[in-house]
């Protein structure tokens, strides 16, 4: 039992995408590591309860019941509330939070965290992303650049296993790929026409995803079931369970302790460092203290910040890292749910086979390569082309035998896309501890006060119109732009609140992801982000984590931590 040993070389708080990487890198470098996870264990394959079920085995065919809805007023706002993987989304009653302004917080408290349910889109940031704050004179400059992360992108990509095409674009640097999945025939035609119509400045490429279609590090690979979010028994996508956890376990250096809610860091104010963590056993409510010379916080962006807010409060009222005035501030997400769709009249003799676990991607082209808009930064698109299934018949006129026959044939081709836009780091977009409300364990909860602002609103106009233009230029008909309800958090790309920076006055973390006020505490999840780019962030967390772990071990060996 974990209780037998109370001291480790390193403690990793959280077992999701970045926590798994921290555990793997630190154990492979010889450290004895304790990985803490606040939720239940989920064993690879064995605990993917629903992954091999047929659709008719679900009494409500995947739909949420009113009992589920009543219990989960936040989750019900979007797809996380469903019948297929309900135990992987955090229960709103057990873990409430306060919304001064609406914030959709979709969490995964279990071993593997959201690495089990993530969208898997994997993109490197580009060189300009790291320079943008400084050039635009907003927020604070990044303390690192693309060259600092480049070798670590390569390092994590080789192990994680990515699928994508080599395009040699400055705006979207290529990763290391095992293979590329195919665009379908309509997407390929659109890709060719967009490239030509927009003079090479706009490109439609296959989405880059952490799905592997070839065996890799003991994983079988993708079977094109497109049921990733139920857990993949084939190890088809990168997750803690399929990838980093087995590697860390193989070293013999990892102890994993589920049901372990870290309440705070123990802070040594004379030594100016953390001594370890205080945890609450979620099942027994017993409190334990574990010590280590290194602590990695990978509890997910906002929970890593929550831990800091609850630590060293006898020294700083706002908690560890609050001396900068930036702890809890600069909350970001990616804004989306705005784009266009259209109908394709051709290729009626073409279809596709299999469930491809990615769509297409259109890299950013606004405020890039000479383009200049009345807002900062830009957006990319994700989308796909497909033929209609039985769902199209619901609103069509028709019942009876002919209707049944027609609807069982592939329907018209349509193609749709949504933009994913950069959200600027606003100091006023913030989280703080609610002074009154407590969760199931009596712990304080977060209060959210954040919103989209003028820059994002202007960007959304382009996100709709540019999608319309590209579909029309490609020959789609019935093209219509659309915009639906978006609230911060819906992108499930929470970033910021403990940002990296160049000095203790402007940031919580330094260029090695160390808390300025406790250099043996590293934060390498979304909390560390100084800006948000417009590309999906997880691959960058992986690279940042591997880089920081390497630095931490070197510093430990030198006796600096």
């Amino acid at each position: 039992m974990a209780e037998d040993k109370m001291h480790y070389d390193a403690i990793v708080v959280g077992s999701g995408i970045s926590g798994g990487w921290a555990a793997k890198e630190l154990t492979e470098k010889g450290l004895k590591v304790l990985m803490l996870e606040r939720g239940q264990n989920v064993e690879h394959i064995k605990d993917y309860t629903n992954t091999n079920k047929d659709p008719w085995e679900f009494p409500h065919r995947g739909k949420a019941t009113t009992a589920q809805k009543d219990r989960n007023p936040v989750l019900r706002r979007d797809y996380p509330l469903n019948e297929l993987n309900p135990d992987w989304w955090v229960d709103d009653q057990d873990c409430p939070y306060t919304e001064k302004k609406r914030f959709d917080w979709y969490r995964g408290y279990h071993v593997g965290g959201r690495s089990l349910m993530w969208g898997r889109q994997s993109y490197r940031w580009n060189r300009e992303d790291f320079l943008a704050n400084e050039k635009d004179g907003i927020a604070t400059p990044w303390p690192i650049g693309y060259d600092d992360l480049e070798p670590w992108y390569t390092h994590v990509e080789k192990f994680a296993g990515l699928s994508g095409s080599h395009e040699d674009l400055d705006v979207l640097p290529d990763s290391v790929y095992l293979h590329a999945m195919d665009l379908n025939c309509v997407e390929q035609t659109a890709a060719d026409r967009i490239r030509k119509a927009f003079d090479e400045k706009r490109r439609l490429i296959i989405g880059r995803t952490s799905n592997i279609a070839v065996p890799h590090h003991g994983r079988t690979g993708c079977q094109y079931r497109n049921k990733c979010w139920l857990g993949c028994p084939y190890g088809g996508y990168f997750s803690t369970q399929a990838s980093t956890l087995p590697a860390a376990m193989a070293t013999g250096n990892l102890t994993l302790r589920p049901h372990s809610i870290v309440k705070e860091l123990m802070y040594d104010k004379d030594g100016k460092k953390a001594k370890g963590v205080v945890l609450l056993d979620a099942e027994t409510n017993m409190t334990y203290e574990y010590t280590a010379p290194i602590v990695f916080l990978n509890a997910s962006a906002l929970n890593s910040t929550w831990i800091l807010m609850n630590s060293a409060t006898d020294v700083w009222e706002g908690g560890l890292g609050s001396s900068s005035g930036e702890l809890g501030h600069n909350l970001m997400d990616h804004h989306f749910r705005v784009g266009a769709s259209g109908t394709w009249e051709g290729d009626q003799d073409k279809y596709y086979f299999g469930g491809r676990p990615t769509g297409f991607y259109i890299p950013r082209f606004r405020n890039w390569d000479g383009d200049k808009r009345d807002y900062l930064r830009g957006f990319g698109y994700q989308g796909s082309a497909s033929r209609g299934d039985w769902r199209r018949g619901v609103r069509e006129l028709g019942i009876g035998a002919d209707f049944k026959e027609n609807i069982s044939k592939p329907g018209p081709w349509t193609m749709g896309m949504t933009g994913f836009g950069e959200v600027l780091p606003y100091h006023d977009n913030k989280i703080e501890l609610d002074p009154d409300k407590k969760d199931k364990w009596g712990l304080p909860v977060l209060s959210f006060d954040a919103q989209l602002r003028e820059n994002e609103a202007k960007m959304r106009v382009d996100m709709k119109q540019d999608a319309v233009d590209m579909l029309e230029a490609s020959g789609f008909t019935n093209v219509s732009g659309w915009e639906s309800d978006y609230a911060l958090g819906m992108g499930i790309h929470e970033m910021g609140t403990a940002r990296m920076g160049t000095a203790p006055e402007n940031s919580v973390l330094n260029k090695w992801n160390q808390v300025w006020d406790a250099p043996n505490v590293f934060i390498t999840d979304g909390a560390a982000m100084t800006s948000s780019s417009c590309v999906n962030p997880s691959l960058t967390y992986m690279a940042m984590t591997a880089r920081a772990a390497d630095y931490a071990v070197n510093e430990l060996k030198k006796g600096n931590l």
Partner: protein
Amino acid sequence: MEKNTLTRRQMVQRMALAIGGTLVAPTVLLESCSFDPDTSTAGPERLAILDAIAETIIPRTATAGARDARIGAFIDVMIRDCYYPDMQEKLNAGIQEIAVEGKRSLGGAFEEATQMDREAFLGVYDAAAADDGSHFFRTLKELTMLGYFTSEEAAADGVVHYEPVPTRYDGCAPVDAHTKVFYSNI
């Protein structure tokens, strides 16, 4: 197999509350419960009218129809578990209207009429629902299609092309007269 999903659901939830947690409850529930139309607590009259409505929309041809896939019971379970009282009332009132108006118009019980007569009668509702997304018949049609096109019967009879493990992706596959719509995940 549990005979009553609702009872089991309530039992599991109460048990979970009693032990101070709910994280395990949904898994327990789903592990124990594949779709069994017998979980419907509807009486024979309700099942008969629901089956007849569903069968009118998706009749048996060379392949299974909605009644074969026991869609009446599926609709009953969905109305019971997935809709709030205002919508339940609206749907049940609509079902009642079909029964009453059908009997008057068809000269006998709706469910006993021929497929052709039932189609002619429900065609009016279908036309109204095509224009009005909030019409009760739109929801009945959607539930019928959701249940049927994700049923074991529709998969077994090849009404949809169900491939649990495709193993490959082809982005440009040919279509012929026999090609069925590829099953899409729920």
